[in-house]
């Protein structure tokens, strides 16, 4: 017979003012199996907790129900108190008579009656609670960092410097990410490559970091502390050990007119190429889609010129497997191309370019060696119009959110232009200037005041060509929406920052949630900004939302510290709220019939096959088995299982069934039928 203690909290006036707590306690006392029922001003206070502990000891309680606030608030508090008094903490449950009752209903009998119902339900649940033991799982102290941009680099270095192993996977041939493409960075205008390159080199040389470039995640299985990852190393067609990175192959390659990804299409590269001079690793890759040999079956010029015979035309993708304990997702973002604003002429007029292309024009390593020359004829543009919010904050045509980085980089672009083209005119069409950040506002002011950038508040309605000029038509809303028309030589669109292509697929592979824009979702918008809803997987940088460099780096270090905290223990303790497949006496062994329809329903691949055999090894039955490390306790399998062979600890069939039966049973235990 159960011996349940019920503790009703007044929460000061919070519950007491609306619910007749004494009456609730008195009603609970009448429920069969309740041997102790009291109310008290503050159950969560030390004296309140002591009341629980004393009652557990004195009345030998087998279960505790605290009628108070939300279990999401104080369940850990009361469970700990029970544990301290020697009661298994999972024999304690809370009835939420504050958030779900006293705070949302008027004072009166119906509210008190509801509180009694809620307590009765939880009493019936607790009567069927079973003592549970937390699950302990070992931790593999190796982190996987996905993405080799600045966020990934920062996270990898922080984790590696803390003494843990890191595997970094980057899908392009070199690490460095978008930051390596930038010319100068706001608000200090220091050279992007100058500050980034040393970090890239450090990643390559770090004893704790294994780098896989030109690689992608094939699959990931497992759970926090115990993931198994398969990495597809795409065929580079190069023997990385033999190659010295001399560059002869690239020089001799006859296919040279391939638009360079690194130069945002403004420059070209050969079919065998190193993406940029400072690339890490600084070894080439053959672009098989464009290489003459792969297309036509002959050429092999690079093979002939290679002094170390490092070319491997027959190389195949290689799958590398690794055990890891945590993942940092740092897969970055992409610039949306201008095609969704046809009236701005991106793609139609050569001199309408996007922000990343301008970065390349302004970069000393870029196609113009840092001189601002327009793509169409190489002339220095005398007038450049920059259009901010080209797609951002535009639910009708683009995306509704603010891409966050454009205000600053547009100011930087205009400034760089003015520095490089003396006497040039720089106009910026903007909606608002968002310059929140250390030294950001000052930076924008500098552009306006010192560098004479002309800011026009208003939107551009169209860009068209007239006699070799790009005519930008817009409105100046500060001048009463007066039409403005500017004859420009070049137009730069600050297009929206969007999620990387493949982000959705990756999120599904990793079992992390993502938002409507395919940016990965943090576990809590305020309190868990680097965690995901999948334990052991963390976020860094612009894969979560558009971010500038300082923010990406800060979040990366945050993620790294979370990984460090995880790796500081040898074993993880997890709540035992997991599904379990029942076992029974032979000849049944389990009510599981082995149909495995639950397998597909499990979001965590936690359901495995278990063979039940006789002592001499004869197969009797194959049944499902839940991997306690993988199971997160959602219970979807439980609802799918026809024979009720799977049950969820903490929310068992018996418990939820009893709750439903008790909820509506308002017959006073002592009243007549």
């Amino acid at each position, binding site marked *: 017979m159960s011996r349940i203690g019920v503790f009703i909290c007044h929460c000061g006036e919070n519950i007491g003012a609306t619910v007749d707590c004494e009456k609730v306690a008195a009603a609970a006392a009448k429920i*069969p199996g309740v041997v102790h029922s009291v109310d008290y001003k503050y159950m969560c206070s030390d004296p309140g907790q002591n009341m629980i502990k004393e009652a557990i000891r004195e009345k030998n309680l087998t279960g505790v129900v605290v009628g108070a606030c939300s279990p999401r608030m104080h369940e850990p508090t009361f469970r700990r108190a029970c544990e301290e008094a020697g009661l298994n903490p999972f024999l304690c449950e809370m009835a939420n008579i504050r958030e779900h009752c006293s705070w949302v209903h008027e004072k009166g009998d119906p509210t008190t009656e509801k509180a009694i119902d809620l307590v009765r339900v939880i009493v*019936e649940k607790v009567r069927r609670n079973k003592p549970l033991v937390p699950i302990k799982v070992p931790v593999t102290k190796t982190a996987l960092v996905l993405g080799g941009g600045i966020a990934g680099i920062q996270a990898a270095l922080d984790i590696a410097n803390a003494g843990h192993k890191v595997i970094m996977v980057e899908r392009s041939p070199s690490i460095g990410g978008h930051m390596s493409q930038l010319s100068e960075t706001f608000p200090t205008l220091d050279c992007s490559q100058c500050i980034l390159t040393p970090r890239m080199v450090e990643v390559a040389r770090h004893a704790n970091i294994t780098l896989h470039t030109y690689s992608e995640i094939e699959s990931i299985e497992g759970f926090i502390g115990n993931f198994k990852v398969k990495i597809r190393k795409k065929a580079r067609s190069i023997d990385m050990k033999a190659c010295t990175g001399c560059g002869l192959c690239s020089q001799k390659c006859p296919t040279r007119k391939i638009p360079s990804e690194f130069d945002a299409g403004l420059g070209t590269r050969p079919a065998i190429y190193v993406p940029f001079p400072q690339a890490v690793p600084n070894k080439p890759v053959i672009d098989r889609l464009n290489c003459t040999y792969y297309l036509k079956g002959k050429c092999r010029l690079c093979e002939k010129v290679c002094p170390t015979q490092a070319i491997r035309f027959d190389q195949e993708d290689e799958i590398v497997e690794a055990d890891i304990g945590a993942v940092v997702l740092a897969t970055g973002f992409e610039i949306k191309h201008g095609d969704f604003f046809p009236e701005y002429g991106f793609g139609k007029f050569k001199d309408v370019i996007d922000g990343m292309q301008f970065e390349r024009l302004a970069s000393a390593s870029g196609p113009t060696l840092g001189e601002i020359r327009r793509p169409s004829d190489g002339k220095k543009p005398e007038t450049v119009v920059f259009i901010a919010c080209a797609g951002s904050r535009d639910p009708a045509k683009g995306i509704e959110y603010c891409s966050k980085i454009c205000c600053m980089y547009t100011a930087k672009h205009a400034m760089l232009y003015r520095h490089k083209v003396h006497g040039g005119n720089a106009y910026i069409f903007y909606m608002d200037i968002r310059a929140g950040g250390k030294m950001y506002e000052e930076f924008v002011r500098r552009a306006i005041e010192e560098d004479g950038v002309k800011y026009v508040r208003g939107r551009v309605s169209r860009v068209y060509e007239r006699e070799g000029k790009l005519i930008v038509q817009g409105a100046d809303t500060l001048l009463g929406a007066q039409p403005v028309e500017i004859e420009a030589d070049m137009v730069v669109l600050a297009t929206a920052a969007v999620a990387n292509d493949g982000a959705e697929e990756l999120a599904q592979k990793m079992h992390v949630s993502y938002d409507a824009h395919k940016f990965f979702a943090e576990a809590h918008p305020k309190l868990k900004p680097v965690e995901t809803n999948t334990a052991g997987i963390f976020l860094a940088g612009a894969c979560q939302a558009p971010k500038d460099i300082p923010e990406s780096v800060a979040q990366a270090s945050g993620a790294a510290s979370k990984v460090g905290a995880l790796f500081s223990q040898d074993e993880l303790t997890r709540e035992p709220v997991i599904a379990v497949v029942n076992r*029974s*006496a032979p000849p049944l062994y389990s009510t599981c019939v082995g149909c495995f329809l639950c397998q597909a329903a499990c979001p965590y691949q936690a359901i495995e096959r278990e063979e039940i055999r006789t002592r001499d090894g004869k197969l009797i039955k194959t049944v499902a088995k839940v991997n306690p490390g993988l199971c997160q306790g959602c219970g979807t399998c439980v609802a799918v299982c026809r024979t009720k062979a799977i049950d969820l600890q903490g929310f068992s069939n018996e418990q939820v069934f009893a709750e439903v039966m*008790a909820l509506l*049973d308002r*017959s006073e235990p*002592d009243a007549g*039928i």
Partner: protein
Amino acid sequence: MEIERRLLKKEALAGLVEKINAAGRKVHAPVCEGARVEFAPIDSIAEADLGYVQTTQSAKNLLFPRVERILSFKRRGGAMETADPDLSALPETVVLGMHPCDAAAIGSLGAIFTWDTQDAFFKARLEKLTVVGLSCAAGDEYCFCASVGLGPGSTEGSDILLTRLASGDFLAEIVTAKGKALVELAPELFLPAPAGADKDSALARIEKSFTREEAGERAKARFDDDALWDGQALRCLGCGACAYVCPTCACFDIQDEGTTSRGVRLRCWDSCGFPAFTIHTSGHNPREEQGARWRQRLMHKFSYMPERQDVFGCVGCGRCSRACPVDMNIKEHLIDLLEAKS
């Protein structure tokens, strides 16, 4: 009591039903429900279908309902209080047009319910039940009453047995005091029987394939012949259709329903054919295979009941075979049993 013979004109049946109803008794009779005929309460004879061969379900529901409340309970002052249902409120009932096999089955059921413990529920219902039987003018390939010691005109179990004569009128045999009491409700309808009323020629011809003694002995002798039982039961699905339509199957289960504060205790039908019928708490099932369950069904009817209760457990109504989804034909299996060599 000596059987009295009377004549009930075919038109008089309607009046009899009216008189019974007027006396506050309920009348149940075979009623056509689409493809099936079932016993159901009637208000007038027009609703009844007396030309039927066999109803799908037997009328045992009238004595042994498929769900019966046997007590209610509630918590008061920390203790449980129980209350028995009021059996005196049960209505007086007349079942009209039941074939002799079903009438005889009442005795078999009664042998179980009053064998040791006197079952108050069964007895209360039986006391209030009057059986007006109807001899069979036709049978079908499933009928085998003659092989179990009964026949299409057997009076066993009937309080009154009607036999439809060639004229369409009914010969009424008043078998018991209960039957006599029923006649008293409408004595004017029961005319003197003509001396030459030939009951036998009005009866169906039911083949006698074996005797019940033979069947019982052979079943017992073949008890250990697993191959025989397993072979017969191979296509058996293990459902309860046979037991639930059977007029003599009496297995039941007791279930409590309700909450921690109040509820009821119910008795409901069960079947020895169900795989879980004999499962032990340990997980062991002494009748693990369908063959063992099938053997149990036959043995109980043809050997155990005659030995222990001195009644036969099968009345040859053939319902189990008609209802069986996989054509398990009990008569055929019994004949097999007799023919099987030891």
